């Protein structure tokens, strides 16, 4: 059974989520979308597959303190599965102040959700004019950027080029693996937003390191930052698993997202790894090509990350492998 892709749409009120949603629903693409919204009635489109949801976040009783899930999402997906061939994909809109973590975690912990659907991407719509103020005012703005696979930088016509470049650098400092797309009125090609497979380990081919080399991340003292780690020598798989498991169980509450493509000693395939807080999964995917450098690359996004300690821990997995 093909899994139904779910796109999560986050962003502040007024950033342009509804504009994007209306575009997705009204464009001729031959696909039917089920849409889960919070503000029912805002949408101008008559669609019998629009459902209103209350964001009901609850803690799982599984001993994992940060393991919160969206109960309404579990229910709605279960209900949607009762239509044979009724739709092709699901779009979930979150409220402006929502923390995206419970949504993403729902796809890790609920068996039924996991077996029937796949989280395709977290798309965050931001308003280029107001984003700096939002980042200054509330932690949710940074969290929504931290969680994104795609960031629509909307309303770029309202800001000066220099300001825009600085804003993009700041976004990349928070989240170096998200793709930033500049737009006005959310006029982006929909294939850059939908059906991306961002959480599909087999489709994660590379991690583009954004503006990492220039140290923009520290200029703004953002509460949420990222650490990018690379190693040219192969890692020891066991050591890496041990390190990452301990790291996520100890600091998972502060590590919002993690993603890695690793070269393991004695293994011809890429080991692809990703996590949301304490929940993570990994798998061997495509073979490394003969003509490419087997570079292990990993990005951690979170609050209060201790970069030297993380780098030392990561590199310890390498040194031991070659000892």
């Amino acid at each position, binding site marked *: 059974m093909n899994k139904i892709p779910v796109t999560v749409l986050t962003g502040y009120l007024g950033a342009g989520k509804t504009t994007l949603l209306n575009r997705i629903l009204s464009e001729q693409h031959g696909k039917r979308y089920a849409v889960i919204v919070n503000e029912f009635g805002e949408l101008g489109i008559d669609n019998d597959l629009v459902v209103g949801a209350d964001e009901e976040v609850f803690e*799982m009783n599984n001993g994992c303190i940060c393991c919160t899930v969206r*109960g309404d999402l579990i*229910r709605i997906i279960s*209900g949607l599965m009762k239509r*044979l061939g009724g739709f092709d994909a699901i779009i979930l809109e979150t409220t402006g102040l929502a923390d995206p973590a419970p949504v993403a975690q729902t796809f890790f912990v609920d068996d039924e959700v996991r077996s029937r659907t796949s989280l395709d991407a977290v798309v965050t719509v931001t308003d280029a004019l107001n984003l700096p103020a939002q980042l200054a005012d509330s932690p949710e703005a940074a969290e929504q950027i931290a969680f994104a696979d795609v960031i629509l930088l909307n309303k770029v016509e309202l800001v000066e080029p220099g300001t825009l470049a600085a804003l993009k650098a700041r976004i990349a400092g928070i989240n170096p693996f998200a793709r930033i797309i500049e737009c006005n009125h959310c006029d982006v090609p929909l294939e850059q937003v939908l059906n991306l497979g961002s959480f599909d380990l087999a489709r994660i081919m590379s991690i583009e390191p954004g503006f990492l080399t220039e140290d923009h991340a520290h200029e703004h003292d953002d509460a949420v930052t990222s650490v990018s780690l690379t190693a040219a020598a192969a890692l020891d798989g066991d050591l890496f698993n041990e390190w990452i498991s301990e790291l996520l169980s100890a600091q998972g509450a502060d590590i919002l997202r993690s993603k890695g493509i690793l070269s393991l000693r004695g293994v011809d395939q890429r080991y692809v790894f990703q996590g949301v807080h304490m929940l993570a999964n990994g798998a061997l995917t495509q073979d490394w090509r003969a003509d490419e450098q087997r570079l292990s690359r990993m990005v951690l996004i979170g609050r209060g990350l201790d970069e030297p300690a993380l780098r030392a821990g990561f590199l310890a997995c390498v040194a031991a492998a070659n000892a």
Partner: protein
Amino acid sequence: MLETESESLIGELGRIWQLTDYVVASCFDAQGNLAFALGDGKLFVVPVSGSEPWTLQVHRGACLSLAAAPGEGFLSGGDDGRFVGVSLSAEVEELASFPGRWIEHVVSHANGLIACAAGKRLHLIKADRSAVDLEHPSTAGGLSFSPNGLQIAVSHYGGVSLHYTQALKSLPKVLKWTGSHLAVTWSADGRFVLTSMQENCIRGWRLKGAEDLHMSGYDTRIKSWCWFNKGRWLATSASDCVPCWPFKKRSGPMGEPPTTLAYRDRGEVTVVAGDPNHPLIAVGYDDGLALIAELDESGVTERSVTFKPPGAGAVSCMAFAADSKSLAVGTAEGFAGIMPMAADHG
């Protein structure tokens, strides 16, 4: 075991249909009329009189819930936000409408009370048609009238609220337990309230005596459960067999292991339905196979008969008629059937 279509007991002895969508629910009314609710919003009704079955478009979108109306006919809830009554002459009456909401739970009691849940709200309609709305702290995971109809249980995050149906203005009694409570049911004697939880377990409260129950060890969420043999047993899905918990004693299953029935090597039990009057359960699996198993209450032997071979998707619903004479079954790919049951077995 290998079976072909010609060996299907339900095809030989009963009646089968290919319907237009996922069979969400099946239900007999008190007279023995049968309805199947479908994922495309239709109701398929099989009259007890033996006259031709008929189909009616009831919801725009999917039917999500189905119950017998008090007396005769059916109640249905849909993802179009409508709570409707459907009579045996195929008339639809809109009882309530909650645009943008899904009506996932509808229930009734023989005393004439009917209710649905719309998000956090319980909408209860009395026999005189007056309606009351009661809000809860989070979305209702399930509804259940107490056997005597004097209370209604609403499960939600953090526990269950019990409302007295004749004193709805007073504060509900709240049974608390951390976590997300989905379906809720009462034991036949009204002494226990049980919920199926997100964490693949059952939580139970003994209303007098303040002793709680906790049943775990399931593979997945318990999406189907049923009382059988006059409420002496609770059978549950969500495993490769059917754990049946004894409720014959005043202490319920406290300290007793479940009796397990209908184990299969591969496959998961998706639906269970209990014979109200005999120690029999119907069991449906994720590959479409359905069987009837008899529980020998001495616990020594087990007999079972497969009446539907694998195919047509997972079994998605089953129901026994109140007089135990018929059994209905539906699947995720639109198979529906009714199987006659011997009335004097047991």
